[in-house]
């Protein structure tokens, strides 16, 4: 065991573990989206779990920093927060904020991170770039909502880990990148009904079991400006 200091608090940790997992186990929340405890590899692609480590010239991602003896970490410096806010703002600039009708409402990672960082869910001075269509119904059981998706890749990596023949993947490139269930026609032949790992791991309910009664989100249902005040999306400065 090694002793490390997170925000001046001494914490016992196993060398070689990721700093992020140690923080989370000790009740110190560090924003993160792409990291999943159960997957060994982390892409460090969400750029949210920055922390400052003594001796490092710039903030580093906690998910790729390994525990070593006498590590001294600060999770809430102004520079860390600045980086996290910038990353979150960019994510929100391609996110359809419609919390009232989103099944992830109240347990959404984006809401949690925005609350922690004290930013609203509607970034100012950034164009909102939404994608068409609002919902992709290709998979026999699950729907995909491109404008909720933060492209963290948890679902893609989990599916690859669990199934020799993965059922979903990233498609396209750049702004048009999506997660796709291309080629899954028959619900009898696929393990999805019993697995559901992708749906459970999604931090923003971008993958959600199809409910035939639910109305198709998006389109004309944009909340009018006078009702938007009650939306949790409006919370925060």
């Amino acid at each position: 065991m090694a002793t490390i200091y997170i925000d001046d608090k001494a914490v016992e940790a196993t060398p070689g573990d990721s700093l992020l997992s140690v923080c989370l186990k000790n009740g110190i929340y560090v924003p993160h989206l792409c990291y999943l405890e159960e997957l060994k590899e982390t892409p460090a692609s969400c750029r949210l779990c920055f922390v400052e480590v003594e001796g490092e010239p710039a903030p580093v991602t906690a998910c790729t920093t390994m525990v070593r003896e006498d590590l001294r970490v600060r999770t809430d410096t102004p520079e860390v927060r600045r980086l996290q806010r910038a990353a979150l703002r960019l994510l929100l600039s391609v996110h359809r904020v419609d919390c009232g009708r989103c099944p992830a409402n109240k347990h959404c990672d984006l809401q949690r991170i925005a609350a922690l960082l004290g930013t609203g869910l509607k970034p100012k001075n950034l164009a909102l770039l939404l994608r068409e269509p609002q919902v992709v119904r290709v998979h026999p059981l699950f729907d995909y909502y491109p404008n909720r998706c933060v492209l963290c890749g948890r679902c893609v990596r989990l599916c690859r880990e669990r199934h020799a023949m993965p059922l979903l993947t990233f498609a396209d490139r750049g702004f048009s990148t999506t997660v796709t269930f291309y080629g899954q026609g028959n619900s009898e032949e696929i393990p999805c009904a019993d697995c559901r790992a992708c749906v459970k791991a999604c931090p923003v309910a971008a993958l959600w079991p199809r409910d035939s009664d639910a109305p198709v989100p998006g389109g004309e249902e944009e909340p009018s400006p006078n009702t938007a005040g009650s939306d949790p999306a409006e919370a925060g400065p």
Partner: protein
Amino acid sequence: MHEQSKEFELTAEEAAALDEIAGALGRFGQERGNLIPILQMVQERLSYLPPRAIELVASHLGMAPCEVYGVATFYNQFRFHPPGRYRIKVCLGTACHVKGGDIILENFERKLGIRDGETTPDREFSIERVACVGCCALAPVTVINETVHGHTAPSKVEGLLLGFQIERERKEREDKKHADGESQDH
């Protein structure tokens, strides 16, 4: 999004090409590194990558079809819709971009009811975006099949499409007349 659109039925020619492809796959090893050369071979024979070809390639390499699709969509060179009889290529190179090429593209998309990279269900028209066709002085440029249309304006888009329609109708009339003439001869 590609996967949203309806699958095109293969023409007899394409079905034959697909059978040939199934045979030609044997020339490639089953390593994943062969994926892109294989996809290029398929596209050379079919001009696009229909879902059935993707399945074929996936099973040859022991990959999931969605993975093959994921790789293929990363590259601009692969198409997922058959080329139309009229291939509309809207230039979005620097000069055309500055001169409003994106507005021309949008006009074609709206008039034909398809997005860039797609093909109308009757396979008459397909829209692509290209980066510089080399005649920037004519910006914004649209290339339809081999013909370059310079100084395209939104108002010209409708004219171009109307021209094709008139041409097609005239041809149909002539074919009909020709057929009638022949049947009278007998």
